[in-house]
């Protein structure tokens, strides 16, 4: 990572830092500690969820797919456990996106880029591939040494093994992806016997390539150059947000262990940082957190673990690097106690927005109608005059039966006075109240004609309301339009 060059330095031309530096290879060191453990746990959870979710079954009854999470493009249905969404309900996706954005904002207000450090897919997969790299090629020192030395058979073998495992993971990642779009067990079988549709193989190919390239090769480059979130995040953060911070009030001036001991024995103040560079060695983006908050820090907390280990060894209190904010830095310097304020205007607003969006979505989900009707008035002709002088309007009605069984509905029209309804292709037993069968989990489109005697006294356009009633369940839905007189 290049060091930042301030505009002032640029203007005066008195810096010797290159503005553009070629990519430096990063060799993050293995570390253990609280945050590393948290990361392993979250990684297991996220990957487990991603790889196993499509295999989970969910009984929806006869004829319906029994996959818990399924995006069924050919039939235009989205299944998520007990929820079944139709294409016209895609606004739930909008709701989810809004929810995701607010959650990200809230996380950011509370603890900075928690998302980046622990949950972002790029982080999770990169971390996984790093683990593979360490396992095959050794830790930081071994890899630096190997890269500097000549190519040996051993080294080549390790490297080939590493890439093989990487590609296997990447391929498995792509494989899990396509399982969300089709019945997983049968797709697995089809994939294995080369019977699956070409699109499945294409997607596996794309996901394999992107996982391998992004998580294996681009790594921190994605966070630094491709991801927009660091820029947005920087604009959203405030002085209360907890960020991974080097507490310079405690660490400076840096001095050796020995010198520190000596100074303290004299009752003088000595910084806790021994300048061992462990925090830099473990950092996946290879930045020096002691330079202050910076774009390159994905706030994975690994430097906290590294430094804590150092502090433990030299017998100083932990958390020289920790989740902290500017306010506490100032308070400590001024000799005041540290305070944290998770509840403040910003977080309350985000939390309430999240609650509101959740409530609205839940309400929409619970009260979503399983019977619906849409109406489209004929455009050409808008109205037809019949030989006896009556006026007829044509409509296309689309009925939606979202239940898993066929049902019979009656169609009523509340519209022009003495209006008569007729559905093309339907001979009704009760002439003014046609009944039709709606196939289960499907839409039915029918042409509907409404005829009313011509009456010069009434408005040229009058409202017309189509009301449908499920004969068995009594469910009702309606749609309104206009009845037009020429």
């Amino acid at each position, binding site marked *: 990572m290049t060091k930042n060059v301030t505009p002032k330095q640029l203007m005066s031309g008195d810096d010797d830092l290159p503005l553009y530096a070629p990519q430096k290879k990063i060799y993050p060191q293995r570390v253990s500690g609280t945050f590393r453990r948290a990361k392993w746990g979250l990684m297991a959870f996220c990957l487990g969820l991603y790889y196993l979710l499509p295999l989970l079954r969910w009984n929806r009854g006869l004829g319906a797919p029994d996959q818990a999470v399924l995006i069924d493009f050919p039939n235009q249905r989205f299944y998520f456990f007990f929820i079944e969404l139709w294409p016209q309900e895609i606004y739930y996706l909008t709701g989810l996106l809004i929810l995701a954005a607010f959650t990200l904002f809230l996380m950011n207000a509370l603890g900075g880029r928690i998302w980046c450090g622990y949950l972002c897919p790029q982080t999770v997969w990169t971390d996984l591939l790093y683990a593979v790299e360490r396992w095959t090629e050794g830790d930081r020192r071994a890899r630096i040494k190997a890269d500097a030395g000549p190519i040996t058979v051993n080294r080549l073998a390790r490297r080939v093994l590493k890439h093989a495992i990487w590609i296997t993971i990447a391929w498995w990642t792509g494989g899990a992806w396509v399982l969300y779009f089709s019945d997983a067990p049968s797709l697995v079988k089809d994939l294995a016997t080369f019977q699956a549709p070409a699109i499945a193989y294409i997607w596996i190919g794309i996901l394999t390539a992107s996982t391998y390239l992004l998580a294996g090769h681009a790594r921190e480059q994605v966070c630094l150059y491709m991801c927009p979130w660091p820029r947005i995040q920087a604009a959203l953060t405030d002085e209360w947000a907890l960020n991974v911070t080097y507490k310079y009030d405690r660490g400076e001036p840096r001095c050796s262990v020995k010198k520190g001991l000596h100074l303290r024995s004299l009752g003088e103040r000595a910084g806790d940082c021994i300048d061992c560079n462990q925090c830099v060695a473990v950092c996946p983006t290879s930045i020096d957190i002691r330079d202050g908050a910076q774009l390159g820090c994905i706030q994975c907390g690994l430097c906290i673990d590294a430094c804590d280990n150092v502090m433990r060894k030299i017998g100083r209190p932990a958390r020289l690097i920790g989740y902290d904010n500017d306010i506490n830095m100032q308070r400590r310097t001024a000799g005041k106690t540290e305070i944290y304020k998770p509840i403040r205007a910003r977080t309350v607003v985000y939390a309430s927005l999240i609650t509101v969006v959740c409530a609205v979505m839940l309400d929409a989900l619970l009260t979503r109608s399983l019977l619906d009707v849409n109406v489209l008035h004929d455009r050409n002709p808008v109205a*037809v005059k019949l*030989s006896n002088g009556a006026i*007829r309007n*044509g409509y296309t009605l689309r009925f939606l039966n979202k239940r898993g069984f066929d049902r019979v509905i009656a169609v009523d029209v509340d519209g022009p006075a003495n209006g008569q309804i007729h559905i093309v*292709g339907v001979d009704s037993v009760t002439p003014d109240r046609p009944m039709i069968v709606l196939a289960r989990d499907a839409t039915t489109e029918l042409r509907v004609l409404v005829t009313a005697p011509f009456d010069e006294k009434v408005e040229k356009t009058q409202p017309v309301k189509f009301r449908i009633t499920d004969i068995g369940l009594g469910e009702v839905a309606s749609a309104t339009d206009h009845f037009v007189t020429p």
Partner: protein
Amino acid sequence: MSAHNDIDRVSGRLTTGHEWDGIKELNTPLPRWWVLTFYATIIWAFGYWVVYPAWPLVSGYTTGVLHTTNRAAVTANLAQLEALRGEKMKALGTASLADIEKDPALLTLARARGKAVFGDNCAPCHGSGAAGAKGYPNLNDDDWLWGGSLDQIMQTIQFGARSGHAKTHEGQMLAFGKDGVLKPDEIVTVANYVRSLSGLSTRNGFDAAKGEKIFAENCVACHGDGGKGNQVMGAPNLTDKIWLYGSDEATLIETISQGRSGVMPAWEGRLDPATIKAMAVYVHSLGGGK
């Protein structure tokens, strides 16, 4: 570039030596992958010239070793489409008209196919929604010159009216004025009588008895007793509220004096039987069918 080696202080890179108002250009070569991609596209282009049609000549063009043509591709695509539709269209071809209307799947297919073909062939006269125009019947209403049952509609589409086809509907509205059969004042009288048949207002001092007499002598033969029309002759019902050419007195006088004989072309031979069937079902389902 030139042999100087002016190094930019900020970036630490060579510059090209060019300077404009103190701004220097960095000598940043194109990335190798980019250059290689560029060469690859050039090689690709040569291959393309050889394989595909590429160069325009004075008359024609180089066809390439594959002899690909867009026309052949389109023809193949169309044939594919036909094959795809074949199964369903065959079902339409064999089912009876009444059965098509009773089977929701066939009805949907027939309506969709009918609508598309109607737009291509019939819309110029009858309008895209079949609302008709002066002289061109509205197919949404329930007034039919040649009959509105499925079979009758089908027959009209197949053979047309005054189309010249051997089985076409025949029948003419004679030019009573032009041919000197009726005198102008008689025409005015009978025009007013016809208006009265459907409850329209009549001119002051109009002699209803005389009108009825003229009508009985000249018009009943086609339009029938009381002017109720005759679908065998294509003679419209004069007692209803629908008028093909207009119901005002001037238009009626014009119709009676000049005669009318609109033409509906025959579609048999131009459209395949299954399509004609689909169209009959579509027109019937517009709502006016009997």
